[in-house]
């Protein structure tokens, strides 16, 4: 007699006895394995921090982080190719083709970001503060910075927790899971933003801003969830969908609920006009974290938005689509126009991300498989290009810190032609020039939008793209057509460490390859029918 059989025998009378049985939720562990691996890796990371000696921590943490992300990636690929779909945890988590695509893209972006986070060459000791608890500007702080004391390795488990939150976010199939995932992904990011080694005050200011605004929107989102529960009497997407389709209940609850829920999601995706935190946080956060947020958070937020809108709120599409029209136009215009005025490259990239968020939202609005697939492709290519561009940003330095002013980049092509070429490639990809991956991303999203009758919006997006091209081009002009600065205050380029080199090569290759032969990439991104 096996253990299982004996357990069943014992449990049988219990099941019979309960008049109103609480059915144990069916848990499909295999479906959520990638999630568990990353969460497990995060927990192991915390233990490593407690157990392993200071000297070996960095190596152990990098190993744990990379292994857990790669392991999660492997099981994502296995699950995806075997079409192992499930609605598990009593309908709280949906694992379907869309989820696998989202996870796959997210893990790729996370892997590349982690490499950038792990680099300790371009910024001696790492981009993160040696001891976050030291007061800014104190003698100890200056010493730690000057001596290139190794960075705090808690960064790695924090990153893994954020990644696990990002993994749950787009897989969530009920509102509470959605909210919890949002918190799990946000809290580590708030911390990570404040850990920059240089310019610590700006970094901490960014963390506080991000935290306060983020907490505020979390509350708004939660209120929206509450109103939707009041309307539908259910927290699951299926329940809300059924109620919305039936049209019973108070419309005010439903509409307010949708509005508040959207605000929360749009905030995380840094869609204008809910973008106000973006430039400050992008500028203040340590550059590798900026890259991680710009790629990962954006992906998670858009993927989650797609699932909520498609699974739960599709019956109300005629109500919320006009609202998103306005939001999309606002986001494109804000990002494009304000981006022109920026002189700090990180802030400029932040506004560019707002403009791109405006383009991406067309993929959500389309509510078709084509739109969803196109959006995921766009997010992958945009994420890789952003990480690549920010990786180059860590290499161009002035004095001790990064040279973030646009003018510091004058004549970069003469000093390091390869970096200038890579940067131009990423910028051209942002601008959507053909034969770069950014173009295919735009094409797929805009085609999907056009098929749903959003032609005018596509035209607005094109005009916005032309405007954004202006400020991308400004950097190319400076790098190639200007004379480099010389003398004391001039920027210099450091030789990238191995991780950063890998990041740059991967990002540049992906940008070119996905631009020239996008077919296999597009095929991989195929999002089928969502489960709810």
């Amino acid at each position, binding site marked *: 007699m096996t253990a299982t059989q004996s357990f069943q025998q014992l449990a049988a009378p219990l099941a019979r006895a309960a008049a109103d049985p609480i059915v144990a939720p069916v848990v499909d562990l295999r479906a959520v394995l990638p999630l568990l691996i990353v969460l497990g890796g995060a927990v192991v990371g915390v233990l490593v921090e407690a157990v392993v000696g200071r000297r070996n921590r960095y190596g152990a943490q990098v190993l744990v982080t990379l292994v857990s992300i790669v392991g999660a990636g492997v099981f994502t690929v296995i699950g995806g190719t075997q079409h192992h779909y499930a609605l598990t945890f009593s309908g709280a988590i949906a694992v379907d083709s869309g989820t696998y695509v989202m996870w796959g893209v997210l893990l790729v972006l996370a892997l590349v970001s982690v490499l950038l986070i792990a680099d300790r060459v371009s910024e001696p000791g790492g981009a993160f503060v040696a001891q976050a608890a030291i007061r800014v500007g104190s003698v100890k702080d200056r010493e730690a910075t000057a001596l290139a004391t190794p960075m705090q390795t808690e960064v790695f488990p924090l990153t893994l927790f954020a990644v696990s939150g990002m993994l749950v976010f787009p897989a969530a199939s009920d509102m509470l899971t959605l909210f919890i995932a949002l918190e799990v992904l946000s809290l580590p990011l708030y911390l990570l933003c404040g850990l920059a080694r240089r310019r610590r005050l700006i970094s901490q200011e960014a963390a506080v801003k991000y935290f306060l605004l983020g907490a505020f929107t979390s509350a708004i989102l939660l209120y929206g969830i509450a109103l939707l529960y009041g309307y539908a009497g259910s927290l699951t997407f299926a329940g809300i969908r059924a109620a919305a389709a039936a049209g019973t209940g108070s419309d005010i609850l439903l509409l307010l609920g949708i509005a508040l829920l959207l605000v929360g999601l749009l905030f995380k995706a840094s869609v204008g006009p809910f973008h106000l935190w973006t430039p400050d946080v992008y500028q203040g956060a340590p550059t590798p974290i900026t890259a991680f947020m710009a790629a990962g958070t954006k992906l998670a937020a858009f993927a989650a938005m797609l699932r909520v809108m498609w699974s739960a709120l599709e019956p109300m599409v005629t109500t919320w689509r006009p609202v998103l029209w306005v939001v999309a136009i606002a986001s494109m215009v804000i990002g494009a126009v304000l981006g022109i005025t920026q002189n700090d490259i990180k802030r400029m990239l932040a506004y560019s991300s707002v403009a791109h968020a405006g383009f991406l939202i067309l993929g959500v609005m389309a509510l078709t498989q084509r739109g969803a697939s196109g959006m995921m492709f766009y997010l992958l290519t945009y994420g890789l290009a952003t990480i690549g561009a920010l990786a180059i940003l860590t290499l161009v330095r002035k004095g001790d810190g990064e040279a973030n002013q646009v003018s510091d980049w004058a004549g970069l092509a*003469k000093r390091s032609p390869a970096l200038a070429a890579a940067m131009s490639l990423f910028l*051209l990809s942002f*601008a*959507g*020039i*053909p*034969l770069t991956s950014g173009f*295919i991303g*735009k*094409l*797929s999203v*805009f*085609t999907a939008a*056009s*098929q749903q009758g959003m*032609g005018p919006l*596509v*035209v607005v997006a*094109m*005009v916005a*793209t*032309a405007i954004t*091209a*202006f400020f991308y*081009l*400004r950097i190319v*002009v400076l790098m*190639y*057509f*200007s004379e480099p600065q010389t003398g004391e205050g001039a920027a210099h380029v450091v030789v990238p460490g191995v991780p950063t080199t890998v990041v740059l090569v991967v990002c540049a290759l992906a940008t070119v390859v996905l631009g020239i*032969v*996008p*077919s296999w990439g*597009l*095929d991989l991104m195929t999002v089928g029918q969502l489960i709810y």
Partner: protein
Amino acid sequence: MNPLLPLMIGLPLVGALVMMFSKNLPVRTAKFIALGFSLLPLVLAVPLWIAHRNSLPVRYADLPATPTATPPGTLSLFSSTFSVDWIPAFGVRFSLGVDGISLVMIALIALLVPIVLGASWEEKLPAGRSINGYFGLLLALEGAMIGVFAATDVFLFYVMFEVMLIPMYFLIGAYGGVRRTYAATKFFLYSLLGGLMMLASLIGLYVASADIRPEGGTLDFAELRAIASQIPLSTQLWIFSGFALAFAIKAPLIPFHTWLPDAGAEAPTGAGTLLVGVLDKVGTFGFLRICLPLLPAASHKLAWLFLLLAVIGILYGAIVAAGQTDIKRFVTYTSIAHFGFIAMGCFVFTTQAVSGAVLYMVNHGLATGLLFLLVGMLTARGGSRQLADYGGVWKVAPIMGGFFLIGSLATIAVPGTNSFISEFLVLIGTFRVQPVWAVLATVGIVLAAVYMLWIFQRVFTGPVRGSAVLGPAASDIAGGGTVPVTRTPVSAVSTDPHRVAVAEPHTDAHGHAAPRPKALWGDLSKREIAVLTPLVVLIVFLGVYPKPVLEVIDPVAARTVVDSGSPVDAISQQYLIGQEAGR
């Protein structure tokens, strides 16, 4: 699967790559390698032309003579086709092929690029720039330009259209004149805005075709042509406006033209020649390739607008050209006037006018190419682009003067030069249906004579004068009529090959022998004569005997007119029936 066209696109690109890694080669070797790569497409153009000629009667005889009848499904409009799957998700194929229009344009590119390389052999580049990079970018530009004209998939056309910008952007921005950064950025942003509007239209075209075709959307040119008449007018107007905006910027038509004088004047001579001579033709080519056959109803509806812009361009371009003080800007403004003629030929929907427009595209490339190169040679010698700095150049450089005169006459379209044929065809084709526009445009010819002869007179005739010719010190003296007593020949200390002093005995008012004011430079070198001669020969040859070019253009012109849903005029009909009878 004919590998000719992929080779013609690929080989220059390979050449560009080679030039990128040629830093360690001797400059001379590198230049010859680049020249070799640029000659390959010219060699390949010969079999391409022959293959197309041989395929003519077979392909065009099968076309229906009425616009309403749908062409047979197996019909191939193009010769030397090459097609592989590229992005199946969007129904996009990497398809290449040539019809008469693209054939002559590709031949023009293949001819002009080696000439441009030869003319730029000793180009003085801005400090710190290598000639290897310059030649490499020119080769990359050649590959992309051939790609634009050879693409038979609208998507591929768009991709090449945008990719073409990048080498040109760097050519202007890195190798150009003083205001190169401004000019390069302006050029890029104008073109990119047009390109993005075209992308929106391209998506619209794809969606529209997906609505009509049961098997899904397509961007293949021939397949779109088959369903063109089924796209509703309102949709066509939307799609048309995006494409037309892109092409009007590129061509450029009047309100969108301001980038061209800046880009053309600041670009280095070689790149400027290709910009004005070939690259801008993508705009008018797009009208004929995409707007007319794929969006016939919209083309007819909005033809008046383009005729208006074209005629404004002809007159405005001519008047503004006459007022230019910068000799390179002058040439770009004459081009704007000529683009008016080409655009007019595109939008009157007669076979003669379309044939004329296509021939005009070739002829303008030859004539303006010659002029632009000569202007480049002149300004490289004098070091100034100001017209006022030159005078009496004929005496200093008679061969240059002669070549310039031929270029000028071709620009005015004097009978016996190639431009006469094309201008005449456009005007007669227009007059038959739109007499008012034709009459207005004819005024432009008179204006052309005014600006061209005036410039020629100011620069080349009269006594030798001007600071660029004589040097800043001598120009005052020579202008004042007094005789310099002693003057060190500048050429004695100069190592510049152009700066050959012309020393002639000169007698002053008192009968004393005194040195005549010495020019700082001399006539065209053997290399320069050699590279310009093919252009001069073609200008005269096509002026006398245009049949070899017209015979490949005519059928596709007739076809374009028929496909644009115009009433079939007698000439098209005769052409199509004649083909059938000849079989």
